[in-house]
């Protein structure tokens, strides 16, 4: 008793026991529930990815049958997209830090927040239940393209139902954040004084609320077709397979921005902290998030340039696809300009943020290749696309997630990890990632289609390089996890502001008290990133 009295009460030690976690309404604890569950599913997805890379080490059969391979890449996609990357940054770091950065004590609807996590878990269990129940996990690819998804004997209905439930989790989190941002900002914090992470979450939340229902309806249509033979997508019973593609991408393209925008928000926090100066171009960065969210709704057709689309539609979708690149370019230029005349402390979160910029640049620039109509005809549905979206999703959002983890780790647990080991893990991850995915871009230009269990001999050496990259990546990942767990168990205690950050989360204790602030946080004078120790221009 005397021991606990000596320690200041914080959200971690204020209550004990499993029920204090499972029924918690504290946004910080819910964030950690998400972190552990999302982390676990991420590792399942990684294992499936490594299995695919091992199978592709040589042409022909290496370790698994074609049918198994098809189920593995489908489950890999479903887990990584719906269970990892869509919830990742918003559900973990958004939940934990949005209220603190706004200077308030919780999200607007704490019960709804906990309910979202339970929906997430139920959806995840449904998705994984296909492993042991029914005719095996779906073998359709995560896109569930009709009519194959209507005809195949595997358990598509359950996988689709899982995605449907996960969609509700996403919608409710988005709704919660929108209301929180509108209603709970600390007095004096106008929209234009919010940290950029909140801006990014705000734009993301609107996409979650407005786009996710479309995928819900579409997935229900698949189930109606499979169970009751309603002719919606299968032409043999009067449906239209192209209709499915439109409906699917009307959600799934904006969903790409659900995955990318929060990562951009994280990078916009990390860079000014380690440059110890104001962010360059606050408004352009903030508003470009909204522009991306808006224009991102109208580019879905670029996934369908070879489906028999009319020339007029192709022009519109291609032009809009190119235009959505511009707000992203603006962000990159502003981030780089923020390093100018900074006083840069090179720490591992900054390295992850800069790696994000490098990887995301490759992801974005290869996106321009895909946006050009005539080139897309050649590289569509090849490994070029696989390389492109892994650069955006993993090299971009994944690295930002790791960066956020290292940036906010001392705030969440009040301890610090081993920095040397963290740097080494970062280097392995960066090298492994690029060795794994860069060859895929070349394979795609050479003409290797995606979702191939077996391939022609000319693709052999690049596939081997890629597989070797996956081994380096896994070693880096394990080292990173080991280092963070070690830091959690016996890392050195740190104070409230180890990075000398300026946003409000650095004004409270580490770990924060249950209600986030013991005394009212003070807004920095002259803007959210106006470092008092820096010279003014």
């Amino acid at each position, binding site marked *: 008793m005397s021991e606990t009295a000596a320690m200041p009460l914080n959200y971690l030690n204020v209550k004990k026991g499993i029920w204090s976690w499972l029924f918690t309404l504290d946004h910080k604890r819910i964030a950690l529930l998400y972190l552990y569950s999302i982390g676990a599913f991420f590792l399942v997805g990684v294992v499936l990815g490594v299995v695919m890379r091992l199978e592709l080490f040589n042409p022909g059969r290496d370790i698994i049958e074609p049918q198994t391979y*098809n189920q593995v890449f489908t489950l890999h996609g479903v887990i990584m997209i719906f269970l990892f990357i869509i919830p990742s940054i918003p559900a973990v770091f958004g939940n934990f830090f949005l209220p603190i950065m706004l200077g308030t004590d919780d999200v607007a609807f704490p019960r709804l927040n906990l309910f979202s996590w339970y929906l997430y878990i139920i959806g995840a269990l449904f998705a994984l239940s296909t492993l042991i129940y029914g005719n095996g996990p779906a073998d359709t690819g995560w896109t569930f393209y009709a009519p194959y998804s209507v*005809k195949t004997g595997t358990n598509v209905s359950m996988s689709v139902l899982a995605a449907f439930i996960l969609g509700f989790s996403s919608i409710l989190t988005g709704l919660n954040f929108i209301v929180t941002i509108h209603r709970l900002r600390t007095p004096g914090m106008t929209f234009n004084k919010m940290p950029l992470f909140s801006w990014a979450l705000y734009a993301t939340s609107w996409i979650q609320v407005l786009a996710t229902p479309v995928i819900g309806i579409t997935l229900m249509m698949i189930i109606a077709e499979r169970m009751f033979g309603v002719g919606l997508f299968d032409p043999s019973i009067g449906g239209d397979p192209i209709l499915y593609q439109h409906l699917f991408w009307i959600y799934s393209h904006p969903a790409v921005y659900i995955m990318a925008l929060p990562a951009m928000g994280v990078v916009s926090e990390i860079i000014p902290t380690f440059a110890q100066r104001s962010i360059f171009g606050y408004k352009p960065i903030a508003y470009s998030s909204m522009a991306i969210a808006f224009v991102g709704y109208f580019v879905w057709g670029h996934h369908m340039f070879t489906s028999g689309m009319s020339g007029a539609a192709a022009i519109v979708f*291609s032009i809009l696809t190119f235009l959505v690149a511009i707000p992203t370019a603006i962000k990159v*230029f502003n981030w780089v300009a923020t390093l100018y005349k*900074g*006083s840069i402390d090179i720490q591992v979160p900054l390295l992850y943020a800069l790696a994000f910029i490098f990887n995301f*640049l490759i992801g974005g620039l290869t996106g321009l290749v895909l946006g050009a109509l*005539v080139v897309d005809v050649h590289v569509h549905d090849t490994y070029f696309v696989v390389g492109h979206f892994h650069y955006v999703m993993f090299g971009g959002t994944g690295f930002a997630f790791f960066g956020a983890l290292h940036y906010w780790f001392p705030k969440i647990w009040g301890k610090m990890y081993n920095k040397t080991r963290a740097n080494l893990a970062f280097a392995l991850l960066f090298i492994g990632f690029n060795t794994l995915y860069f060859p895929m871009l070349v394979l795609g230009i050479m003409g290797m*289609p995606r979702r191939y269990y077996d391939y022609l001999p000319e693709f052999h050496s690049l596939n081997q390089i890629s597989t070797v990259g996956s081994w380096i990546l896994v070693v880096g990942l394990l080292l990173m996890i080991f280092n963070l767990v070690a830091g959690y168990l016996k890392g050195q205690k740190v104070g409230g502001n180890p990075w000398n950050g300026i946003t409000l989360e650095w004004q409270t204790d580490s770990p924060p008290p249950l209600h986030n602030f013991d005394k009212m946080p003070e807004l920095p004078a002259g803007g959210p990133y106006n470092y008092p120790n*820096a010279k003014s221009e």
Partner: protein
Amino acid sequence: MNASNFVESVDFTLYLILGIAVFFLVGITATMIYFLFRYRKKRNPVATNIEGHVGLEILWTVIPTILVLIMFYFGWSGYKPMLSPPDDAMEIEAIGQMWKWTFIYPDGKTVDSLVLPVDKPVKLNLKSPDVLHSLYIPAFRIKQDVVPGGSNMMWFIPQKPGKYDILCAEYCGQLHSYMLSSLTVVDEATYQTWLKSAPDLSNEHPGLTLLKKNACISCHTLDGNRLVGPSFKGLMGRTETVIVDGQEKEITVDRAYLIESIKEPNAAITATYQPGLMTPYKDILSDADIDQIIAYIETLK
């Protein structure tokens, strides 16, 4: 000379965009690394707050906009001709099904791989009886989805004699990556000879035609090799262990067993093969068709 008339515009646009991409990637990365060293804490202990610069914001909005509009223009101008085949193009029906390609020439000649004369425009009318496929000829830089119930087409002019791969680029199930064919481009005289003399699928055993038409041979080989299902070679009369209601049972493959296995494949599946993969053909093949197929299997000793 390029392999097809579309190679030039695809490759030009690709290298144009890649060139711009490499320029920006290298430039931005180098700038980042330079700032990292120039403004590191040791060398620059006090930072300067700079809120932004309107001129720079305009500059790095306008320049990328111009660049992407140029990319769009070349993308579109190269793509536009792909939509309008010339009127004198030879029309060939290309059928993609799980998991093989079939090509029907104007005179009815039916083959599983294309032979085409050099420098003559060709239009492929794309049909699918089952699910989505995509006909992809990497060397020609073109692909087009094959949509069941749809009427997509693709066209091109082969410009260089040679043999090129045809791949399926839209995921279509278990043997998607084995849905391969080839396109051989020859001179006009060789083409005419081939057109008249090459063995025509319509002359082969009607049982074999049915096996090909229904894509049976995607999973069952004719030469004794194991694929997804047992090979047809030497099947008739062989002793097999099959699984009926979960129990292993020894049987001799006869006419009755083959008929049952075609109509209801899962009733007695050969041990070591996975059940549930083969579609029951009871509503697809007539009894007469099944007779032809069994007659052909009997010839595969």
